[in-house]
C-alpha cells in the first residue's frame, strides 16, 4: 500500500512537468499572438501520421543511446558532461575506419561499432584518469574535453580524414562507407525509412538494464552512487569504479552517432547532428536514469521535434518547442527534488512509527 503511494508520487514528476511545459508554451504562443489550441492541434494531427512515427523513432534512437550513456554516470554520481565530445570524435573516427576497410557485412558493422566504442571509451578515460590520479573533477575536465574534441574533429576532418576532392565537389566529408558497412531500413512507414539500428538500441537498453540492476557490478555501481562511504567499506574500490563507469559511459556514448551513420549519412559530414550529447543529459534527467524512462523521454523529445516541423508552415515559429523542452527539463528536476524530499520524510516517519510500535510491544511483553 505504502509502496503504491510512493510510486504514484513519482509518477507526478513527469506528469506535472508535461502539464507545466504545455502551460508555459501556451503562454509564450499567446504572447506572440498565436493560438496555442490551433498549434497543438496541428502538431497532433501531423505528429500522428505514419511517416511522422518513423521520423520520431529515428530521432529518438540517438537520444536514447545518449541518455543511457549519461545515466550510467549519474547512477554513481558521476557527471559525464563529456558525452558530446565522446560521440563526435567516436563517430568521426569510426566513419573513417569503416571506409578504410572491406569486410563481410555483419563483421563490417561490428567493426565500425567496435571502433566507435573504443574511441568513445578512450576519450572518456582521459577524464577518468584525471579524476582518479589527479583529483580533477569530471565536470570541469569533460567540459574542457568537449571543446578540445570539437577542435580536434575539425582539424582531423579538414587535414587528414577528408575524402580527396573529386572535380568541383566541395563537400567536406570522410570517404563513403561501402554497402557492407551500411544498414538498410527495417521497414518503411508512410514512405519514411525506419532505421534498423533501432533493434540494436533496444538490445543495448536491455543490456544496460541487466548490467546495472541485475549484476554484482551494477549493484556496486548504484551503491557507490547512493552512499560512497558504505560502498567503500563493503569492499568496492572507488577509483576502479570511477574508471569502469567512465569507460562504459564513453563506450555507449560512442554509439550515439551509429544510427545516422549506418542508416543515412554513410560518412562523417558537417551535417552529422551535433548537440545530442547535451540533449542526452536532458533525456536521462527526464527519464529518471532508468532505461524505460529514458526510452519514453527520448520518444517524447523525438516526437516534439518532428511534430513541431509543421508549425513553420502555419506561420508559428517552431523554435517555441526548444522552450517547451527547457521547461520540461527544469520542471522535472525541481519536481524530482520535491518528491524525493517528500518520500524521504515519509520514510523517516514510517521508520519512527515502526520503532515506537516495536518499543511498545517490548514494553507490553516485559510487563
Amino acid at each position, binding site marked *: 500500500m505504502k509502496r503504491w503511494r510512493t510510486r504514484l508520487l513519482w509518477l507526478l514528476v513527469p506528469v506535472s512537468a508535461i502539464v507545466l511545459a504545455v502551460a508555459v508554451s501556451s503562454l509564450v504562443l499567446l504572447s506572440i499572438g498565436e493560438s496555442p489550441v490551433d498549434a497543438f492541434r496541428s502538431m497532433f494531427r501531423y505528429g500522428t501520421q505514419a511517416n511522422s512515427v518513423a521520423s520520431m523513432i529515428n530521432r529518438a534512437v540517438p537520444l536514447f543511446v545518449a541518455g543511457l550513456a549519461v545515466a550510467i554516470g549519474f547512477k554513481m554520481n558521476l557527471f559525464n558532461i563529456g558525452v558530446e565530445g565522446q560521440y563526435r570524435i567516436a563517430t568521426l573516427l569510426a566513419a573513417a575506419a569503416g571506409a578504410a576497410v572491406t569486410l563481410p557485412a555483419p563483421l563490417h558493422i561490428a567493426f565500425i561499432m567496435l571502433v566507435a566504442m573504443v574511441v568513445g571509451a578512450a576519450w572518456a578515460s582521459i577524464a577518468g584518469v584525471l579524476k582518479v590520479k*589527479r583529483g580533477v573533477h569530471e565536470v570541469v575536465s569533460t567540459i574542457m574535453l568537449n571543446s578540445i574534441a570539437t577542435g580536434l574533429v*575539425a*582539424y582531423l576532418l579538414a587535414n587528414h580524414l577528408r575524402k580527396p576532392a573529386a572535380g568541383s565537389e566541395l563537400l567536406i566529408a570522410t570517404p563513403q562507407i561501402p554497402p557492407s558497412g551500411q544498414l538498410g531500413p527495417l521497414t518503411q512507414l508512410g514512405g519514411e525509412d525506419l532505421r534498423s539500428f533501432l533493434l540494436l538500441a533496444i538490445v543495448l537498453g536491455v543490456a544496460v538494464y541487466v548490467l546495472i540492476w541485475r549484476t554484482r557490478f551494477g549493484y556496486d555501481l548504484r551503491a557507490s552512487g547512493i552512499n560512497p562511504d558504505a560502498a567503500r567499506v563493503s569492499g568496492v574500490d572507488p577509483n576502479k569504479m570511477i574508471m569502469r563507469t567512465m569507460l562504459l559511459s564513453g563506450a555507449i556514448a560512442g554509439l550515439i552517432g551509429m544510427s545516422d551513420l549506418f542508416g543515412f549519412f554513410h560518412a562523417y559530414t558537417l551535417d552529422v547532428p551535433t548537440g545530442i550529447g547535451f540533449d542526452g543529459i536532458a533525456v536521462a534527467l527526464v527519464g529518471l536514469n532508468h532505461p524505460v524512462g529514458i526510452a519514453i523521454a527520448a520518444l517524447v523529445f523525438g516526437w516534439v521535434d518532428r511534430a513541431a516541423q509543421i508549425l513553420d508552415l502555419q506561420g508559428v515559429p517552431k523554435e517555441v518547442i*526548444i522552450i517547451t523542452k527547457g521547461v520540461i527539463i*527544469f520542471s522535472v528536476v525541481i519536481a524530482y527534488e520535491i518528491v524525493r524530499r517528500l518520500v524521504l520524510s515519509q520514510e523517516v516517519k514510517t521508520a519512527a512509527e515502526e520503532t515506537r510500535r516495536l518499543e511498545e510491544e517490548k514494553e507490553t511483553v516485559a510487563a
Partner: protein
Amino acid sequence: MSWGEVDTGLTPAVGAETGRRLDARRVLLLLGFVIVLLSGVRWITAAPDLTSSGTYGAALRLAVPILLAALGGLYSERTGVANIGLEGMMILGTWFGAWGGWQFGATWGVLLGILGGTAGALVHAVATVSFGVNQIVSGVAINLLAAGVARFLSVVAFTGAGGGATQSPQVTSTLPRITVPVLAGGSFFGWESPDVLGWLERQHWFLVSDVSAMFRGFMVSLSILTVITLLLVPVTYLFLWRTRLGLRMRSAGENPWAAESLGVRVYTMKYIGVLISGALSGLAGAFLVMETAGIYREGQTGGRGFIGLAAMIFGNWRPTGALAASGLFGYTDALNLRSDPAVHALVLVAAIALVGLGAWYLYRRRFIGGSVALVLGVLAFVWFALTDSIPRQFVFITPYVATLIVLAVASQRLRMPTYDGITFRKGEQIS
C-alpha cells in the same frame, strides 16, 4: 576538489590556503620573464605581431568577455554555487544587448544585456538554492534553455526587421572610446597629442619597443566597458575580501552550516552571488555585441562562458588569477586572429618556457616533473623547426588544454571554496 561529493570528516578552517601561494612579487617576476622571452623570440623569428600594440590591444579586447565570465563564476562559486550556466547567461546577454541596442541605443543595450544575464541567473538561483536541484544539472539546463530562448526570440523579433532567425539588425549607436593622450596619441580638447609609445614601438629596439607596444596596446581606443571590466578586478577583491557582506558571501561557500549558526542568511548570500554572476555574464554578452559587429549572431559567444569558467579555475578562484588567465587566453586568441607566423613563433616561446621549467625542476630535484617538461620542450622545439605554420584548430583548443594541464599538475595547489557545488538546505545537517 568537491563539486558533488565531499569528505565530511574534516573541513579546513575558513580562508586556510594549502600549498605555496603565488604572491605579488613572484607574479611580477614571472611576468617580467614572459615579456623578456616574448621580446627575444620576436627578435629571433622576426614575427612582429608577437609583441605589437595591435596584438596587445586585440588581446585585451578578447580577454574582456572571458574575464567578465570568470569574475561572474567567481562570485557564484565563492558563495558555494557551481555555475556552468555562464555560457547560457552570456548568450542571453548577447541577445538582449543587441535587441536593446537596436531599439534604444548602445547604453540601453548594455543595461538590458546585464538584465538578460541576470534573468538566466535567477532561474539558476531559484532551482539550486530554493529547490536544492543539483547545480550541474541546472547549469546544463540553463545552457540548453538560453540557446533556445535566444533562437525563439530572434525569430519573433528580428525576422522581417533587418535580421533573421540567427542574426539581429545593427545596434543604432556606439559606446564612447578612450585613447590616452600624450602617451598613445589621443586628442586632448581638440589638440592632437604626440604618440610617444607609438614612436618607441616603431624603433624596434629589443625589449624597449616591446614593452612600449604593450602599454600602448592597453591605451589605444579603449571601450568604456573595457575600463569598467578592468576596474572590476580590484573592486571584486575589495568587495569579497574586505567588506562584511563579502565575508558573509564567502562563508556561505566555505561552510554554510557554520555561517548559518552565526546568523548569516546563507540563501540570500547565495542568491546575491548567483545574480551577480549572471549580471557579469550578461555584460560579457553585451560587450561581444557592442565590440564586434554591433549585431547579435547565433553562436557568437563561441564557448567563452566555458573559457571563463576555465579562467576562474586556472586563476584559483581569485580575481587577480582570473585576470592573468583571461589575459593569457585573450593573447593566444589575438595572435590567432592577427597572423600565422606569430602563432608559429608562440611554439618557440612554449618550447623555451618548458625547457626552462624543466631545468628549474631538475635543480629542485623534482626529477619526474623535470624530465617530462624537458622532453615536452624538446618536442616543441622539433615541432617548431619542422613546420611553417600551425593549424588554427590547435590555437582554438589551447585554453582548454592549458587548463587541463594546470589542473592535472597543480590541482593540489588550487583551492576551491570548500562547499562549492554542494546543495545546502536550511536547518539540515551536513549531508
